[in-house]
């Protein structure tokens, strides 16, 4: 059973990557290609948020890191003329430094307190961007950002898509390695029981800061990519909507799993666009909200857990003897 499961996961991953590679040829539509590119970017963003949640810290202000990465990348690219392919990672480094600084104020805080501070932090950053930093950021009007590739190159959308696909896969693989390593173990130990983790020799402060830095870095990469893709940036990027988005994706997909953010982003993007095509505007938010609440109440482990739950129901249906449920850890 276990081996079979591993195989399903392995083939599923290969199939998903293969599908992502051939998707542009199947769709052959610039609107959908653009959508797919944005979806990849949000997979990075949601995975970054999930990495922080993995260490037990739920942030409600990840748009701050998304926006800082984007602004830093843009400003560096504009001032120095370096291609966005490099500035994306430099801008994200700025986001990571800020992330560690915020992490320093948050190490003693948990749950609601942490959520509040991160939420407030996004608002503070937005305020600073439109007041003190206006000469650099262009205030509420925003500034133009260098594109990832010049639109003069034939087929630039396709190259951009594949570049972003590569970065997305690299990010997810990186997160996979982190979660598999001692660092990942330390993160989950802190999440589950901080006192026991400390007793086992894990320094919570160090690992929490590390989680903040890594998560902010990846969120910065996602932000810088989005802006390099769109070509324009305004302080709206620090908005509440963008902070809630990765939360919605991850909860729907499955909190604290590697596949959760990926699946959540894909499912929600498809649902979102489907509802948009059906002509719904406000009501699609209501549908997503209801779905979110239903998932939290009935599927606490998210959509990735749905096959397991169905399997259990099916077994129970075929063999409805009580007390036959296998012991769960």
């Amino acid at each position, binding site marked *: 059973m276990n081996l079979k499961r591993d195989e399903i996961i392995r083939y599923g991953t290969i199939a998903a990557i293969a599908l992502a590679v051939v998707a542009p040829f199947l769709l052959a539509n610039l609107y959908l290609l653009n959508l797919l590119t944005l979806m990849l970017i949000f997979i990075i963003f949601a995975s970054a948020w999930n990495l922080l*949640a993995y260490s037990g810290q*739920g942030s*409600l202000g990840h748009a701050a890191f998304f926006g800082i990465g984007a602004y830093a990348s843009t400003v560096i690219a504009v001032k120095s003329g370096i291609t966005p392919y490099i500035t994306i990672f430099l801008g994200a480094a700025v986001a990571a430094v800020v992330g560690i600084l915020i992490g320093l*104020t948050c190490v*003693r*805080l948990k*749950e*609601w*307190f942490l*959520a*509040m*501070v991160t*939420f*407030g*932090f996004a*608002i*503070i950053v*937005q*305020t*600073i961007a*439109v*007041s003190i930093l206006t000469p650099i950021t262009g205030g509420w009007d925003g500034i133009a950002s260098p594109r990832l590739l010049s639109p003069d190159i034939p087929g630039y959308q396709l190259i951009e898509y594949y570049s972003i696909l590569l970065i997305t896969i690299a990010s997810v693989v990186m997160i996979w390695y982190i979660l598999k390593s001692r660092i990942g173990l330390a993160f989950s130990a802190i999440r589950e029981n901080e006192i026991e983790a400390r007793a086992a020799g894990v320094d919570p402060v160090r690992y929490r800061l590390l989680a903040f830095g890594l998560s902010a870095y990846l969120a910065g990469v996602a932000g810088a990519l989005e802006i390099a893709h769109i070509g324009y940036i305004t302080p709206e990027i620090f908005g*509440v909507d963008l902070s*809630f988005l990765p*939360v*919605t994706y991850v*909860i729907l997909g499955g*909190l604290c799993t590697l596949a959760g953010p990926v699946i959540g982003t894909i499912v929600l993007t498809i649902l979102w666009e489907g509802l948009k095509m059906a002509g719904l505007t*406000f*009501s699609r*938010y*209501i549908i*997503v*909200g*209801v*779905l*979110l*609440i239903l998932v*939290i*109440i009935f599927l*606490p482990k998210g959509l990735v857990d749905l096959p397991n739950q169905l399997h259990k129901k099916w077994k129970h249906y075929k063999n409805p003897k009580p007390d036959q449920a296998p012991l769960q850890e």
Partner: protein
Amino acid sequence: MYDIGILLQIVFWGLYAGCIYILLATGLNLIFGVMKIVNFAHGEFLMIGAYITATIFFITGFNPYAIIILSMLALVGIGAIVERLCFRPILGTSKLNEIFLSIGLIYIFTNSAAMIWGDEWQSIKSPYAGITVPIGSLTVPLDYIIIIFTTAAILCGLYVFLRKTKTGREMRATSQNRKGAMLVGINVERMDILSFGIGCALAAAAGTLWVVSGQVFNPYMGSIPAVKAFAIIILGGLGSIPGAIIGGLIYGIAENGAAYFLGGVWKDAISFIILIIVLVIRPTGLFGESGE
């Protein structure tokens, strides 16, 4: 350097802005005390209260201050439904779930309101708009004075309810020790619904006061006052109602001061700067109990 009159004016405006925050924060605190959950979607109830007030006002033309009772009653019902359907199933699970669930509620309420009432900014005109009362060297709008007294009256009513009635005593018992309350035969689930409903009614009162003071409102306006209210109860200590009142006044005054001295864009940021500074020094808030 600055005119003392202007400083007094800022303090008075802050007092008025603080009233709305106090009502929101007291409601949140009441819910937290009894259920030990935090509802981030609390501002959405303020928004619904504001729209209910405006709608009834447009249809009937009643004095908007009288509508406060209707909007509070309506929100008791909505709050009870939300508690029963959404929060009760997740009681006792991971604390982060409440935050995530609130995000779902925010989506549902803001967009339902946008579907029903449209998403443009609206405002109504209070019957007392333009009337000012001189107090010492200050001239203050009559509306502000009525708002401050209404808030005080609601808070006194809440105090009497919690101290003198049987239900209020049961509610306080539940908030002090849930298991103990169960043991002496208090129906704690009834207390949950009741406290959630009352908390929502306080938010609705805040919404009505928001509207009658002539402030604009739209379906998306709820989240900032709610997180500020939440920041206030963190500042004042979770579960401490005097803390909520003092915190609300501090925030109202600080915000108006910041808007005057630093410029309007700092209005929202200043409250979070205060919050972060307080939390860095005292992770449990100014009046919170020590420990986890």
